[in-house]
């Protein structure tokens, strides 16, 4: 009798600990890092073309995925938080791939680079269009 009760108690304690452990894991789950993921390799022009042609189907392929995009830098800038960003050239004059970088890099307009980051979707505001990548790394 005694040992049966002890087994029950032990079982409950184990379950509780497992539950707490899982909750702890969820609470402290580390943020995603593009550096840890392989990334889908694509050119800036091809990525933009697919989004411009059909946003929904492009989203189903690329939204929230890690991408490694190659293209020529047409603009560089800094956001209000001091994060560095670059825009990559596409085949449409008012279309770019907009990339916010994880850290400052020595990047210049005119050079062709590969950037790895997480795709957050397509912005369309009449005057210009772009695909947004955040937390980007420069691929050497």
């Amino acid at each position, binding site marked *: 009798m005694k040992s049966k009760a002890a087994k029950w108690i032990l079982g409950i304690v184990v379950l509780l600990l497992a539950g707490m452990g899982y909750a702890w894991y*969820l*609470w402290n*789950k*580390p*943020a*995603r890092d593009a550096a840890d993921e392989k990334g889908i390799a694509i050119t800036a022009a091809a990525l933009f073309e697919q989004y411009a042609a059909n946003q929904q189907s492009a*989203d189903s392929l690329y*939204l*929230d995925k890690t991408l490694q995009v190659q293209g020529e830098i047409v603009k560089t*800038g800094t*956001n*209000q*938080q001091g*994060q560095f*960003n670059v825009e990559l050239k596409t085949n449409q004059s008012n279309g770019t791939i*907009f990339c*916010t970088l994880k850290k400052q890099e020595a990047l210049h307009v005119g050079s062709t680079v590969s950037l790895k980051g997480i795709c*957050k*979707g*397509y*912005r*369309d*505001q*009449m*005057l*210009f269009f*772009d695909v*947004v990548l*955040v937390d980007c790394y420069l691929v050497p």
Partner: protein
Amino acid sequence: MHCSKLHVQNSVVFMKRFLLASLAVLLLHSAHAQIWFTKTGAISFFSHTEMEDIEAANNEAVSIIDAAKGEFSFQVLIKGFKFPKTTMQEHFNGANYMNSDKFPKAEFKGKLVKPAAVNFKKDGVYTAEVEGDMTMHGITKKMKATGKITITKGVPSVQATFKVNRTDFGIKVPSFTAAKIAEAIDITVQCKYEPYK
């Protein structure tokens, strides 16, 4: 013969004048076009309940101001909101909340209620009301918000904080988390613009 030559000369002069005039009108027009934009607008939100405070920020909001018409537009990608905790971010994007796979962006398009309230050509701080359509989670609602428009050396920036009722946009959230997520969410917008050429 002579007469028709004169006529041709006259029409050439006329053409030149016409072209010059059109050029002047074009230049004048572009100087007054006053289109401003940003691709790095900051939009954040804050939800306060007894149980939990939740905050998230997005630094890739697009915004365009057509100063001549007093029109404002903002667009933000839902997946781009960053939370301090990864699990919160996953919940926020999930089917029970923003369902961002299906509704990847939120948008606001509006106009100054009183166009004269802001003089884009004169440096200063203006408080103005903007009204228009807000779309998120697939639902469009009319709304009004008051913001601060600052013109510094001719360049505008916008700052606004307003409340949005998530239930107005059909964001119901499961009952076991409802106590942690406020119904009225504080939204803060901060944008610095550059001229559009």
